[in-house]
């Protein structure tokens, strides 16, 4: 479960100050897929960065597994990300020069998984996205859809509890995009993981259990999530 309490993030100072997200509060239960919707500049990426501990909002709490990750030391946050979370990006960010195997192996190396266990895990992740035959291929030789599938393999290899996907299908056509979405949802359902998709695609958002719509740094609409203090 992710418990976000009153987080506020401001960029710049004084006259130039810009409030990216303003006093956001919500809870995401386990086994939930959530879409964070909003136009560019609405603050949805900032929210994702705050929830993953990449960014540190000046106010509020992000409580995951009972720990406020905003109060953890850098090293502890790094370890948290390495073991519990993973990311998928619009532009894949796979290492073009490296083999598919090495790309997928990276999160395991970062999480200090012993070498003996890595092989099986990487192979399983590649099989899950149907890229087993590309194991030794260089990542640059893959097609766009294959690259994003490789990114998914990299994201799921360490069996994270939370996956952040930032516009995962933004660079793909609708057919390959749909394939990529299916792999993501399949993992989330099979493992009971939380999947948080940042997008401005309403169709993709409709496939999620819950939706949070952000406008100018505040939540404009929220569906499918339990409301805090909803005792009226």
């Amino acid at each position, binding site marked *: 479960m992710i418990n976000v309490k009153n987080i506020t993030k401001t960029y710049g100072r004084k006259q130039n100050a810009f409030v990216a997200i303003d006093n956001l509060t919500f809870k995401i239960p386990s086994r939930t897929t959530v879409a964070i919707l909003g136009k560019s500049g609405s603050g949805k990426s900032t929210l994702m*960065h705050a929830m*993953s501990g*990449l*960014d540190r909002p000046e106010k509020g709490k992000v409580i995951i597994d009972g720990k406020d990750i905003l109060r953890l030391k*850098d*090293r502890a946050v*790094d*370890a*948290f*990300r*390495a*073991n519990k*979370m*993973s*990311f998928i*990006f*619009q*532009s894949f*960010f796979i*290492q073009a*020069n*490296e083999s598919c195997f*090495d790309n997928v192996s*990276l*999160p395991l*190396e*970062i*999480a*200090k998984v012993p*070498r003996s266990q890595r092989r099986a895990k990487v192979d399983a992740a590649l099989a899950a996205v149907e890229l087993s035959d590309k194991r030794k291929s260089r990542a640059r030789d893959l097609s766009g859809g294959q690259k994003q599938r490789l990114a998914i393999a990299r994201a799921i290899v360490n069996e994270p509890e939370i996956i952040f996907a930032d516009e995962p299908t933004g660079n793909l056509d609708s057919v390959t995009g749909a394939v990529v979405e299916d792999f993501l949802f399949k993992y989330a359902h099979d493992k009971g993981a939380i999947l948080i998709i940042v997008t401005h695609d309403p169709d993709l958002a409709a496939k999620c259990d819950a939706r949070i719509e952000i406008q100018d740094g505040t939540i404009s609409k929220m569906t499918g999530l339990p409301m805090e203090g909803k005792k009226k």
Partner: protein
Amino acid sequence: MRTTDIIRRAGRSLRQAKTRTLLTSLAIGVGAFTITISLAGGQGGRDYADAIVNSNTDVRELVVTKESEDTGAIAEYNPEAPQVTGPAGASPFGDSIEFLGLSDLDAIAGIDNVTDVTPNYSPAVDYVTTEGEKKYRATVSTFSPGVSLEYAAGGVNNDLADDEIVLSEDYAKALGFSTPAEAVGEVVQIGATKQRTLFSVPQREEFGYTVRGVSSESGLAFRSQGSLLVTQEATKGLYEFVSEGSPNYNRFIVASVRVAEPSQAEETKVTLEEAGYTAQTAADLLGTVNTFINVLLGILLGFGALAVLTSIFGIVNTQYISVLERTQQIGLMKALGMSQADVGKLFTFEAAWIGFLGGAIGAGLAVVGGTIANPYISEALGLGDIFLLIFTPVQVLGVIVGLILISIVAGIMPARKASKLDPIEALRTE
């Protein structure tokens, strides 16, 4: 991240930028090459000097001269002192040389630990010849049992008799012996002229010696040595014959003093100097030669260090560009939970790899090239079978390790930049 994984990833990153890695490494390689060669040259030079001094001098022997009145200061005239100026006794610097008289030799012999005092007789003989051959100009020297010689044929084992001689290969050849072995056992004649005769009638005489051994041409021998060697008694005999009655009879420029134990050489030197003599031990001689070698070595090392210094900027530049190029990769690794320290380590190891590669290439080429060139260098310099470049594993390893450390230092700044990178900024796609 485990260190082994970081090292592997660092190596892989470099392989993906082969040309750049190689070029940067080559810059260090130049430094590594120069340093390795100069260290090998220094080692070889010192070994060579050591060998020369050991095979030409005896560690129990001191070379003694009479201390000349301070150079530069004007000496008081002493009518008692056996002093000669002019062509015969003048040193190349114009100072007059004081001679060691018999009384000096006696005084030196009386010093503690001194077992033997031998003046350098250097009899001025005229020629050497053998039956049916031409006469050749020659210089006779004293055979010193403490000096090691290499023999092409025959040999002396501390038992050279007074009527025996050791010839150099060159003389054996000139005297018509087709092989060195043929000369052994044959008799050669040394001709000498008495300098001062009663009625100024030249008095010539020939002295016969049996060839006991033929010394082979060695890179270790001084040029002046190795021609004709006879026992001390024999040189003395020749000297007496040639010089007796002449003005410089029994006045010697140099005498060699033997002490009982090698360890006493230094102590005796001090005693001799207090008594007004100048003494040089084998160690002194070696020290002089080594100083010269060390200066040359220092100059060469300086060039190597300059090359390394230049290559440091190459590493900084390469690594800096690498960080800029791989901003997204660094951002991703940090997003996936790689710690600042590990990111820093990744780039530090890359720099270390470059240093290792450069060091290995440079030092490797130096060892291979030096080993191939050694025989040619020895031939060109006439060193015989002595090699000038001596590579010791410790030095080669030291050069490589040193360059790895220098590269790591050079990589600190780029590595810091990488570790401080903000992952959010790095992963912005716009």
